[in-house]
């Protein structure tokens, strides 16, 4: 069982990415442009210099957070499509802390991140509470809350905390900005926090009894209930943790990269996070890797558009194709007919090994 399944977990996403790139290449060729030059632009845009690479890592940071949020909830069998809303609420909370409380320096950052995390958790708790109390579909509730959060953020940057004639808030004070890892490599510490969080959540999910319970509910809530697990409580806590992770991501994005709220903040991060989590098969560390891959695509797509006049949305198409193939691949190898074939080849392998011995 084991070795081949682990191999499949790596091979399928890699193969899916490859196929998606080939299809993307065909589309580009269909436009009468050379796909190899196009992909050259894409990767040079993301890796071309240490500065560009640093930007790519900075783009990956929020994606890691929303992907971890999506993965954690889905491990418990619930779909949190509200990552974007929770992300935005985290950032909105932080801007309030920064602009109104007057705290500065490191304590200010800590307070702001902490409150952003808490409010993200609160926003994430709403679909959880409605699910366990009223049996409502958590996907619809969390999507509706995304719209509410986005509109509320719009209210904040166009009226409440608006500064000047353009609809945006003032930037947060210099002392509240996250510092860079080094002067030559402009990646803020939030990226390191994201990677650490990925490992922590991976440990929690796979090595603690709490994580085991979460996974048990995700696999079979009925069986978990008969085993005496507090299913409702676990579902709610997975929502809260998921929302908190996304909220922290929003706070860090504000403190590390954007420094202010404006139109488009956080847009699309929620759905991208879900996509990343699915491709990574809900493994937190895998999610960090896939998020990095998505960041490469996002960063490179702008070079692609300016350099070759190819609409950057070709990259979104590639991303969607990766999900379609990656998830399709995992389902395919679970099909009885395919399993039978795999078992046969496995048996031949062991026969051969036996013959050698």
């Amino acid at each position, binding site marked *: 069982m084991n070795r081949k399944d682990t191999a499949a977990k790596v091979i399928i996403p890699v193969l899916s990415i490859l196929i998606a790139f080939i299809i993307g290449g065909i589309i580009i060729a269909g436009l009468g442009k050379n796909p190899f030059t196009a992909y050259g632009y894409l990767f040079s845009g993301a890796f071309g210099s240490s500065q560009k690479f640093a930007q790519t890592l900075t783009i990956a940071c929020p994606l890691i957070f929303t992907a971890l949020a999506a993965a954690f909830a889905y491990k418990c069998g619930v779909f949190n499509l509200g990552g974007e809303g929770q992300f935005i609420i985290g950032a909105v909370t932080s801007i309030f802390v920064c602009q109104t409380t007057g705290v500065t320096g490191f304590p200010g950052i800590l307070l702001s991140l902490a409150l952003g995390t808490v409010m993200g958790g609160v926003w994430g708790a709403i679909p959880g509470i409605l699910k366990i109390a*009223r049996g*409502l*579909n958590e996907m*619809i509730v969390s999507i509706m809350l995304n*719209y509410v959060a986005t509109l509320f953020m719009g209210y904040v940057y166009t009226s409440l905390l608006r500064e000047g004639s353009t609809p945006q808030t003032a930037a947060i004070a210099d002392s509240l900005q996250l510092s860079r890892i080094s002067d030559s490599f402009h990646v803020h510490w939030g990226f390191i926090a994201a990677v650490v969080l990925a490992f922590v959540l991976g440990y929690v999910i796979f090595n603690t009894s709490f994580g085991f319970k979460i996974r048990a509910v995700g696999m079979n809530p009925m069986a978990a209930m008969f085993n005496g697990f507090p299913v409702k409580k676990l579902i709610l806590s997975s929502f809260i943790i998921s929302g908190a992770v996304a909220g922290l991501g929003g706070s860090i994005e504000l403190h590390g990269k954007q420094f202010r709220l404006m139109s488009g903040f956080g847009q699309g991060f929620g759905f991208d996070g879900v996509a990343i989590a*699915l491709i990574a098969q809900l493994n937190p560390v895998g999610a960090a890797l896939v998020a990095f891959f998505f960041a490469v695509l996002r960063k490179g797509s702008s070079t692609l558009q300016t350099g070759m006049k190819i609409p950057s949305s070709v990259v979104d*198409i590639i991303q969607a194709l990766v*999900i379609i193939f990656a998830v399709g691949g995992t*389902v395919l190898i679970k099909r009885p007919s395919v399993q039978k074939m795999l078992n046969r080849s496995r048996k031949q392998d062991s026969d051969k090994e036996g013959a050698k011995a």
Partner: protein
Amino acid sequence: MDAVWNISFLQELLLSTIRMATPILLVAIAELYSERAGMVNIGLDGLMAIGALVGFLVGYNTMNPFLGLLAGAAAGVAINMIFAFFTVSLCAEQIVYGMATNILAPALASFIYRLSFSDTSVLIKGVAQDAAAIPGLSQIPFFGKLLFNHPPLVYFAYILVILTGIFFSRTRPGLNFKAVGEFPRAAETMGIRVINVKYIACIICGALAGLGGAYLTICYTNTYSEGIVAGRGFIALSAVIFGRWVSGGVMMACLLFGFCDALQIRLQLIFPNTPYQLLQMIPYVCTLLALIFFGIRKNGPKANGQPYFREER
């Protein structure tokens, strides 16, 4: 202020309710067919986006609104076949492929739009379907203008509600359809071809959702812009739950959401000093409240969202 709350205001408000409700209604009926066959398709937003774009493009190039609508429906079917293949034939998770549709289809739409019109700063006007007043009936005071002076697609949507109601409660194919959503294994032993029914459901769903999208660019406005769908697919999804999986109920739910949307726009005009974002929240908040108070998940098809493994015994 008083002048605003008169009869013509009411008429305009209700008229705009019907206009706003129609796309949601078409898409909600699409989802109703899908869910009755046990397929939860959350990719409605994506299907609408591609329907909106293809409808717009074909309408723009042929100057024929009917062709545009038809093309929008066809595009919806084409994209939904990806969902159908992976979820019905490979038994993959429906939610995941709905998500994939929501990422793929809008990206495809924006890609095609940017290729077709290299300058995206100019708003390009496509073709619009004119209102077809029904002779006689449209002359009735107040109600005539309200109910019988719309683009043909609006009449189609409401006729569809009636036909769908009859289909699911009075006809054999309709009952077969429901059996697939309730208990596919039993349906199969009764000689119903479960896989075929599910595919047919996906075709109907794609066509109607694409049509709902095309409504936005042909009947509602005659322009295309990114994000034109604005979560209407998800509102339709909640309308199905709120309407308890019956076409009449779904229609009432859609009219309620349409009313919230229409009201919101008018309130923006009446209260220009209120931040418009707070008013724009109304339809979403109403959806949530409606679900909280009336959206108990009991009447849904029993095998909704579950993959059907034919080989499994």
